[in-house]
């Protein structure tokens, strides 16, 4: 199955930011061809450190979020070793829970893996503490231009790139076609421009509710636990921001903040979401959909394989996908991960070579197809990818990803974001159980200001 993203990316909101400057031939496209890609620059301006043929052994730690992700990394390792004789990349698959604690202990003890995976909202902690390898000597300007600008910015700290943006993902809305038909919802947005407004989304929720029994609910949202920051999508949609433009202070309380919070609080008051679809729960939004407690849910595209799995996936009939609602603006969350190397790795040239290899065109394409995730190279954004599951859903997510603005990227990748996310977890949980919007926003502001040192 193939899907072209060119048509729907062109002209959509944020496309300019994503598409960036003019296209160049990809210097990273020689992966899997038998030629070494290590540390070599083929085109473009700027200086690239010449590292020759790398040799040696490094360890790459990652969490296998799905079988597709593990397959993608295993494929990359094999291809890299074949293309670079004398190199060995030891893969270390670690559970996601406790992954970064393990990395931190390793860094403190001096035995951390040379290369590891890190999500965009966590990378700031490592770059701020100066433990990551500055990859700027290894990338020419032309090579940098190959990446979607917003995602290249996501791996930078004080203008220095620490790692490579490997893939991205974002939230979209999936729904049961049968439930929509029963509720008389005949039209579902097929483009970003026609995405539901908040009012239209509310009408959809009400229609669904009217046809559901008391123990079923219209939808669930993916703000559970560490996903609390996904609430910010509502804030951005309302036209607000979390931080001031210079990122020095919290921009809350604000009218947009109040609007977003009161709207999301109303989901609980109106019983549009299950009462336990909050932050501190062990039930995620995809669980509610799979158990058919809700006929519509907000999920990241990385969960598409789970939902589409013939054996354990969704059993409620045919399901489709559409866009996040929009208000003043369209917005979604910055998901996905970078790959970084340690500054004190024993073989920085080899580490940089492997990072470059991971984001080479063929390797990234294979990974994204297997893991059902979105690429970060412009050339792949414009190319047909053979997704293993539901390319129609990935198409929606890819288009939704264009609503991840520079502001969202900057705010979600600051060094103290973990503290901010904790504050959002605590305060949104309280807000969804009755704490007033002003009290919640004040408390968030206090904690955010502490986190950014204001």
């Amino acid at each position, binding site marked *: 199955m193939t899907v072209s993203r060119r048509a729907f990316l062109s002209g959509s909101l944020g496309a300019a930011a994503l598409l960036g400057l003019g296209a160049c031939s990809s210097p990273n496209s020689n992966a899997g061809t038998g030629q070494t890609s290590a540390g070599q620059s083929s085109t473009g301006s700027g200086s690239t450190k010449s590292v020759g043929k790398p040799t040696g052994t490094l360890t790459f730690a990652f969490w296998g979020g799905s079988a597709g992700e593990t397959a993608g990394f295993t494929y990359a390792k094999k291809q890299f070793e074949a293309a670079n004789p004398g190199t060995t990349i030891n893969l270390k698959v670690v559970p996601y*829970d*406790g*992954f*970064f*604690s393990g990395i*931190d202990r390793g*860094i*403190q003890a001096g035995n951390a893996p040379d290369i590891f995976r890190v999500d965009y*909202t*966590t990378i700031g*902690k*490592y770059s701020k*503490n100066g*433990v990551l390898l500055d990859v700027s000597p290894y990338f020419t300007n032309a090579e940098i231009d190959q990446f979607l600008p917003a995602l290249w910015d996501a791996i930078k700290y004080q203008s220095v790139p620490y790692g490579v943006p490997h893939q991205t993902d974002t939230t979209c809305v999936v729904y049961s076609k049968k439930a929509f038909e029963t509720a008389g919802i005949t039209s579902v947005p097929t483009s970003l421009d026609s995405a539901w407004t908040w009012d239209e989304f509310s009408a959809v929720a009400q229609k669904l509710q009217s046809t559901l029994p008391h*123990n079923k609910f219209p939808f669930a949202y993916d703000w559970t*636990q*560490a996903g609390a920051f996904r609430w910010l999508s509502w804030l951005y949609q309302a036209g607000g921001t979390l931080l001031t433009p210079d990122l020095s202070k919290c921009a809350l309380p604000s009218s947009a903040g109040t609007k977003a919070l009161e709207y999301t609080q109303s989901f609980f008051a109106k019983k549009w979401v*299950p*009462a*336990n679809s*909050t*932050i*501190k*729960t*062990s*039930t995620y939004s995809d669980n509610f959909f799979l*158990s058919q*407690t809700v006929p519509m849910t907000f999920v990241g595209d990385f969960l598409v394989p789970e939902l589409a799995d013939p054996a354990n996936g969704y059993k409620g009939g045919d399901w489709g996908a559409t866009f996040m609602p929009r208000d003043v603006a369209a917005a979604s969350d910055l998901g996905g991960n970078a790959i970084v190397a340690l500054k004190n790795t024993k073989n920085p040239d080899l580490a940089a070579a492997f990072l470059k290899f991971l984001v080479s065109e063929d390797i990234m394409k294979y990974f994204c197809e297997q893991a059902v995730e979105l690429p970060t190279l412009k050339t792949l954004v414009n190319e047909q990818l053979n997704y293993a599951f539901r390319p129609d859903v990935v198409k929606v997510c890819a288009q939704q990803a264009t609503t991840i603005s520079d502001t969202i990227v900057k705010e979600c990748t600051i060094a103290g974001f*973990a*503290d901010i*996310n*904790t504050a959002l977890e*605590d305060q949104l*949980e*309280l807000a969804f*159980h009755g704490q007033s919007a002003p009290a919640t926003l004040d408390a968030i502001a206090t904690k955010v200001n502490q986190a950014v040192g204001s």
Partner: protein
Amino acid sequence: MPRGTSYKPRRRGAYTHGQAAAASLFLLPNLALVGLFLLVPLVLAFVISTQKLGSLGSPQYIGIDNFITLFRDTIFWETVWNTAVFTIFTVPVGMVIGLGVALLLNSVLPGRTLYRSIIFLPLVISGVATGVLGSWMFDQYNGFFNKFLHAIGITGPAWQSDGKWAMISLILVTLWQRVGFDMLIYLAGLQGISPDLLEAAKIDGSSAWQRLRHVTVPLLGPSTFFLLIMNIIYSFQVFDTVWALTRGGPDFSTTTVVTYAYREAFDDHGPQQLGYGAAVGVFIYLITLAITVIQWRFSRTRDEAG
């Protein structure tokens, strides 16, 4: 000693020296392990609690600032209250149920070995697995309990979105897990009670309840003391079941002191303030120590009286 026999005492120094050397050799491995894995971390926890220390970067000495912050932290005191409630409802209730089951299974009962095994089985399951099982059972929309209640016409409680019910679900899961341990210790205690004593009490005309109240229960004193100490320590340190079952929610209603310490210090997406987490750990240590000392003194007095 017969008069006239010359008594030549063993040389005191040689006797004690040799014994001490042998004892030291035997004790050395344990002392090394205790020192390395218990005392050193304990001292380090006290040291780290006086530092501002993130998961990366260098420590900064801040004296007792972490403790001042801790005592002003309203969430922390809420977690202390939650832990106290959890302890009060799990320790005595669990011990009473454990004693009851032990009494039942200590008698001649067909298949009692099987029953003992079934009741003990949850204890060998990890706390995380127990918590996950609990989250399935107490899922307020799709869990076993509410579906069962629905089948008999009762609307089940909001196990996950109501703080009180969430705490009850946590207590029930914990009791399910720990009653087997209480039963096991009490069974061992019961089998150490001489039947002659109970027989004598029966001949003296005491009823079954009187024999239990005035003979069995007092003689189970050491078992009760052991269980009380172990259960209180366990309850104060409960983490895995809570984390898997409720994540400390809704709000902070099931957040215990240890889950709070974990979240502050070790959660990958949390503040990762190791110094502050260590301060919480020191608090738990001191409270547990105080309770143990009080119980120890109480128990010794009672033993002497008995």
